[in-house]
C-alpha cells in the first residue's frame, strides 16, 4: 500500500535530499525569470510565475507534503520548512498558491483517511496534482460549525449543494476537499469531509469559474465554488461522517505551525532589503541607517523577527516532540508570529518611506511582501480564531503549567533529528504539560545564562509574569472564555502567547548547538526586553546598545548574504566561523 509512489516517475525525488531551491531559483536581486523585479510584475498582473511553477513541478514539490511512509519525502517538518523557505523568501503567494493549500487539504487525509485514500492522495500529490480546501463560507468565516453547504446521502453517493467562497486553486485543482453539513443538528458532529476528484464528474453539477480578486497574494487563484447536487462517491468520505470539525481542527495544527515558520522567510528577505536600502539611501547628509529613529525601527523589527523565529521553529519541532500539547502551541504560533511579523513589516515600511509606497526599484518587492503577509493573520485560523482556541483552554493550560516541572531540551535543539510525524498523537485537548512556560525556569535552560546577567534577570521577571498570569486566569469564569469574552480575557490569551514565546527564545538561546547570534548576551537581553515591552502594552524604545548590536548583526549577515533567521540552516553554522563576525 505504501509503495504506491514508486509507480510514479517523480518518486525518484524521495531518494536523498532534493536540490536547494535557492540555487534553482537564482539570486532574487539579479534580473531573471524569478527575480524580484519579475515577481513584482507578475503580481501586478495577478498571475503566478510560470517559470517558478515549472521549476517547482520539476523539483517534485508535491512529494514534500507526502509522508515518507507513503512514498513522499516528508519526515522532519523542520526540514520541510527549510526546503520551502526559498519560495517564501521570493513570493509568498507562490508558496500558498502552488503548495500550502494542497498541504492543508492533504493533512486531513493523513489524519483521518483510510489506507486506500491515503495511498490515492499520496499518488496524486507525488504526480503534482493539487487539492483545494473547500471549507470557507464568507457568511461564517472561521465559525466552521455554522457552515451551511450541505450534502445528503442517497444510494451510496453524497450529493453536495451550496457554495464555498474564496477558495485557493478552486478552479485549477484536480480535487477539492469539501466540508459539508450532513446533519441539521447544531454542534460539532454535523459536518463531514468529502473528497471530490474532478475527474469523477464536474459540469453541470459544479461551477468553480468565478475568481475572487484580493489586495494581497494577488497571484493566487482564489475563487468560489457553487455546487448543484454534485455527486461524490461515498468512498470519498474522509474520516467518519460527522467528524469534519474534529479532523480539521486536528489537521490544521500542522499548518498552523508550518505557515508562520514559512512567513519568517519573507520577513527575512524584507529585513535584508531594509538593511541594503538603509545603507545606500542618502538622507540629511548621511545614509538612512545613520539616523537614530531609522535605526530604532530596524532594530525593533529585528528583535520581533528573532522572537517570531524562535517561537515558530520550536512549535514546528513540537509537532513531533510534544504533539499532545500542540493545540495551544500551534494556536499561539499562528496568532503571535504573524502579529510580530506584520508589526515588523509596518516598522520597515516607515523606514522605506516613499520608496515603499511609490514602489521604487530595486525595493518594489517590499510593498508586495507587506500586502502578502497581511493575509497570513487572516487566512486559515485567523488571529482572533487562534486566540479563541486558546481562551477556553486557559484554565486547562494553567493546571498543566502548575504541574510541569521541566521542559524538553530537544524542543529547542534546532535542526536536531525528528522522526516522521505521528498524526494520531495530535489531539483537541490541552495535552499534559506546558513545556514552553516551563523553559523560563528550567535549570537546563537557566544554566546557559550567566547568573545575574540582564537576560537572566529578565527571565526571572518573565517567570513571575507567568505566575501572575496564572492568578488572573484563576479568577476567570466560564462566561468570560467564549466568543463573547471581554477584551480583558483576550488580553490574557495574548499575554500567554508572549510568555510562551519568551520560553521558546530562552530555550533556543540555551540549545546545545545554539546559533551564534542567540549566544550574544545583548541580543538575548534585547529580545526579552522587547517581550517585556509588549507585555506592558507599550513598547518602549530599545536601549541604544541593543539597537547597535542588532543592526551590526543584520549588516554582517547581509554583507555575507546569509539569512538572518537563526533557525535557517542553509549555510553551515560553525561557531568558530561566525565568532569573529558577531563579536
Amino acid at each position, binding site marked *: 500500500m505504501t509503495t504506491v509512489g514508486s509507480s510514479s516517475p517523480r518518486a525518484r525525488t524521495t531518494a536523498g535530499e532534493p536540490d536547494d531551491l535557492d540555487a534553482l531559483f537564482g539570486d532574487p536581486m539579479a534580473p531573471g525569470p524569478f527575480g524580484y523585479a519579475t515577481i513584482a510584475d507578475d503580481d501586478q498582473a495577478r498571475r503566478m510565475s510560470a517559470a517558478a511553477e515549472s521549476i517547482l513541478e520539476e523539483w517534485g514539490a508535491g512529494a514534500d507534503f507526502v509522508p515518507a511512509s507513503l512514498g513522499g519525502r516528508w519526515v522532519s517538518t523542520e526540514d520541510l520548512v527549510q526546503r520551502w523557505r526559498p519560495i517564501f523568501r521570493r513570493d509568498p503567494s507562490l508558496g500558498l498558491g502552488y503548495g500550502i493549500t494542497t498541504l492543508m487539504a492533504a493533512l486531513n487525509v493523513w489524519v483521518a483517511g483510510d489506507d486506500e485514500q491515503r495511498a490515492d492522495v499520496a499518488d496524486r500529490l507525488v504526480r503534482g496534482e493539487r487539492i483545494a480546501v473547500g471549507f470557507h463560507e464568507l457568511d461564517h468565516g472561521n465559525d466552521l*460549525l455554522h457552515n451551511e453547504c450541505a450534502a445528503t446521502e442517497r444510494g451510496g453517493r453524497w450529493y453536495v449543494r451550496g457554495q464555498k467562497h474564496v477558495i485557493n486553486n478552486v478552479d485549477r485543482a484536480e480535487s477539492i476537499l469539501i466540508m459539508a453539513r450532513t446533519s441539521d*443538528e*447544531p*454542534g*460539532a*458532529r454535523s459536518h463531514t469531509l468529502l473528497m471530490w476528484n474532478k475527474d469523477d464528474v464536474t459540469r453541470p453539477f459544479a461551477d468553480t469559474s468565478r475568481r475572487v480578486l484580493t489586495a494581497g497574494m494577488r497571484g493566487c487563484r482564489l475563487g468560489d465554488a457553487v455546487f448543484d447536487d454534485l455527486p461524490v462517491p461515498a468512498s470519498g468520505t474522509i474520516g467518519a461522517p460527522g467528524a469534519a470539525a*474534529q479532523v480539521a481542527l486536528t489537521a490544521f495544527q500542522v499548518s498552523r505551525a508550518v505557515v508562520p515558520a514559512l512567513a519568517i522567510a519573507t520577513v527575512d528577505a524584507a529585513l535584508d532589503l531594509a538593511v541594503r536600502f538603509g545603507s545606500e539611501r542618502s538622507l540629511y547628509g548621511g545614509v538612512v541607517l545613520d539616523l537614530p529613529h531609522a535605526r530604532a525601527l530596524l532594530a525593533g523589527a529585528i528583535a520581533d523577527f528573532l522572537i517570531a523565529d524562535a517561537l515558530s521553529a520550536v512549535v514546528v519541532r513540537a509537532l513531533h516532540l510534544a504533539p499532545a500539547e500542540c493545540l495551544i502551541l500551534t494556536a499561539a504560533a499562528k496568532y503571535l508570529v504573524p502579529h510580530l511579523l506584520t508589526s515588523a513589516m509596518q516598522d520597515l515600511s516607515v523606514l522605506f518611506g516613499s520608496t515603499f509606497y511609490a514602489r521604487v526599484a530595486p525595493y518594489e518587492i517590499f510593498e508586495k511582501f507587506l500586502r502578502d503577509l497581511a493575509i497570513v493573520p487572516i487566512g486559515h485560523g485567523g488571529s482572533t480564531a487562534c486566540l479563541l482556541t486558546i*481562551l*477556553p*483552554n486557559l*484554565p*486547562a493550560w494553567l*493546571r498543566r503549567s502548575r504541574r510541569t516541572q521541566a521542559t524538553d531540551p530537544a524542543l529547542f535543539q534546532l535542526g536536531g533529528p525528528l522522526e516522521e510525524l505521528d498524526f494520531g498523537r495530535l*489531539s*483537541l*485537548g490541552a495535552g*499534559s504539560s506546558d513545556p514552553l512556560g516551563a523553559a523560563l525556569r528550567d535549570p537546563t535552560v537557566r544554566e546557559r545564562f550567566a547568573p545575574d546577567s540582564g537576560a537572566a534577570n529578565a527571565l526571572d521577571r518573565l517567570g513571575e509574569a507567568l505566575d501572575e498570569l496564572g492568578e488572573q486566569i484563576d479568577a476567570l469564569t*466560564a462566561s468570560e*472564555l*467564549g*466568543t463573547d469574552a471581554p477584551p480583558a480575557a483576550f488580553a490574557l490569551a495574548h499575554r500567554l502567547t508572549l510568555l510562551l514565546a519568551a520560553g521558546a527564545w530562552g530555550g533556543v538561546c540555551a540549545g546545545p548547538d545554539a546559533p551564534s547570534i542567540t549566544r550574544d548576551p545583548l541580543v538575548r537581553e534585547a529580545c526579552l526586553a522587547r517581550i517585556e515591552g509588549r507585555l506592558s502594552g507599550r513598547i518602549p524604545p530599545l536601549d541604544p546598545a541593543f539597537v547597535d548590536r542588532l543592526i551590526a548583526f543584520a549588516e554582517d549577515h547581509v554583507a555575507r548574504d546569509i539569512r538572518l533567521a537563526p533557525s535557517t540552516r542553509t549555510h553551515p553554522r560553525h561557531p568558530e566561523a561566525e565568532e569573529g563576525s558577531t563579536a
Partner: protein
Amino acid sequence: MNTQTDAIESWLVERVVAYGKVDSGSFTPDTPLAELGLDSVYALTLCGDIEDEFDLDVDPTIVWDHPTIRELAGGLSERLAAA
C-alpha cells in the same frame, strides 16, 4: 459500576446547574447538552471540572461523542474503569 455511573450522573447534573444556564428540574439526563447551553466553551469548562474531580485528562471530544448527561456518565465511568 451502575452505582458509580449514577453518582457521576448526579455530579454532572450538579455541574450543569452550577453553570447557571438552566434551572434544575428543567431537564433530564437525556436532554442533549447542547440544549442546556453547553457550547464548546462550557464543554471545556466541564472537561476541566472532570479533570479536577476524577483526576482524569479528557479532550472536549468526549462531550461530542457523549452528547447527553447519561451518555457522558457512561463514557466517563468506562474511562475511569480503564484508567
